[in-house]
């Protein structure tokens, strides 16, 4: 199974037919026949009883030594060689259950993306990063509704009725930094699993970013300058590639990326209630 994540191509070799069928079901929109930037051998095990999973996951801690990695609960282990563009992972199959509240497949996808970018771009700025946001295509532009888990991204997606827009993804979106100063910022769908089935491979200009805030009413207000930059940077999925050890380099990338985005995209704080009409009427007031 070879998939595109942004503009990198990952060939994922699955050992079991059931895993392959699940992969096609989940990531079918992102299949490609392009040459891979990286190959991943992914094997699954069934050594843990379902009732033992949660305590083991809660205690899970990653360890890393040379080119090998593993977790404390024996749930994941593997090795990698980025020079040979290869990663090998063995993981408990239950970790990849799409219905899990914390989806390890999403962690795998972001890791694969950033690792493949490391191979393809080296130390150069990443062309795109993952942002925790719901992305909705409205009037040929993408509105991003950003925030951490539990803030309401999936709720916004579920409040999107036919005619309100098209949900691209309700969990994470790839955001492309502008190619030049004051250039367009683009959003691109990705094989990330959210609370809705929406996972489309669509790319369109970002019109605006809404930082979600829970509340009892619906209102929107602009957020500018430093507050916009800091609140946005917290929604960037940490751009860590496999084996990365330089912590500061990670934050430099996030800082550059967030600065480029807030310079080119208007940012708002959106507080909203569970009323679809007031939500989309309020959003429309800043879309003009």
């Amino acid at each position: 199974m070879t998939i595109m994540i942004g503009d990198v191509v990952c060939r994922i070799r699955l050992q079991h037919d059931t895993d392959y069928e699940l992969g096609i079901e989940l990531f079918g929109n992102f299949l490609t026949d392009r040459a891979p930037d990286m190959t991943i051998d992914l094997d699954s095990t069934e050594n843990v009883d379902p009732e033992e999973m949660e305590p083991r996951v809660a205690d899970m801690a990653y360890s890393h030594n040379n080119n090998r990695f593993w977790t404390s609960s024996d749930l994941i282990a593997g090795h990698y060689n980025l020079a040979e563009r290869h990663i090998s992972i063995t993981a408990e199959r239950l970790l990849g259950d799409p219905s899990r509240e914390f989806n390890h497949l999403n962690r795998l996808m972001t890791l694969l993306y950033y690792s493949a970018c490391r191979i393809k771009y080296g130390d150069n700025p990443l062309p795109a990063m993952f942002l925790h946001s719901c992305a909705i295509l409205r009037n040929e532009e993408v509105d991003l509704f950003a925030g951490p888990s539990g803030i309401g991204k999936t709720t916004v997606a579920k409040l999107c009725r036919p005619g309100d827009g098209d949900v691209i993804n309700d969990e994470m979106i790839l955001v492309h930094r502008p190619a030049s100063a004051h250039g367009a910022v683009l959003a691109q769908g990705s094989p990330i699993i959210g609370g809705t089935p929406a996972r489309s491979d669509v790319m369109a200009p970002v019109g605006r970013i809404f930082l979600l805030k829970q509340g009892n009413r619906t209102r929107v207000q602009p957020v500018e300058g430093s507050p916009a930059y800091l609140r946005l940077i917290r929604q960037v999925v940490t751009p860590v590639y496999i084996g990365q050890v330089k912590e500061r380099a990670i934050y430099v990338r996030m800082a550059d990326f967030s600065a480029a985005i807030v310079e080119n995209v208007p940012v708002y704080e959106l507080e909203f209630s569970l009323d679809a009409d007031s939500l989309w009427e309020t959003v429309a007031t800043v879309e003009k």
Partner: protein
Amino acid sequence: MDYALQVNELIWRRIGDEVVIITGDGLATHILNKTAARVWELCDGTHDITGITETICKQFEVSPEKARTDVDDVMAQLEELGLINGPAKV
């Protein structure tokens, strides 16, 4: 001459009139207002306090005395927060 230098592992960006600083471990952030942001930028190891004061005086159109007070206050705070080293006497 008195020089001050930004602490090396900090990550900072100018956002509009302000400077936002993130510590190298990503755990703390600081927002510097217009004046503090300019003082910070001049703490590059090549501007002494006299030069920083002159720049602030011209850029913000304040008296030399006011500029010096503001620069001293800002640099004391930046040093207390661990964001600059110095001023080191050369």
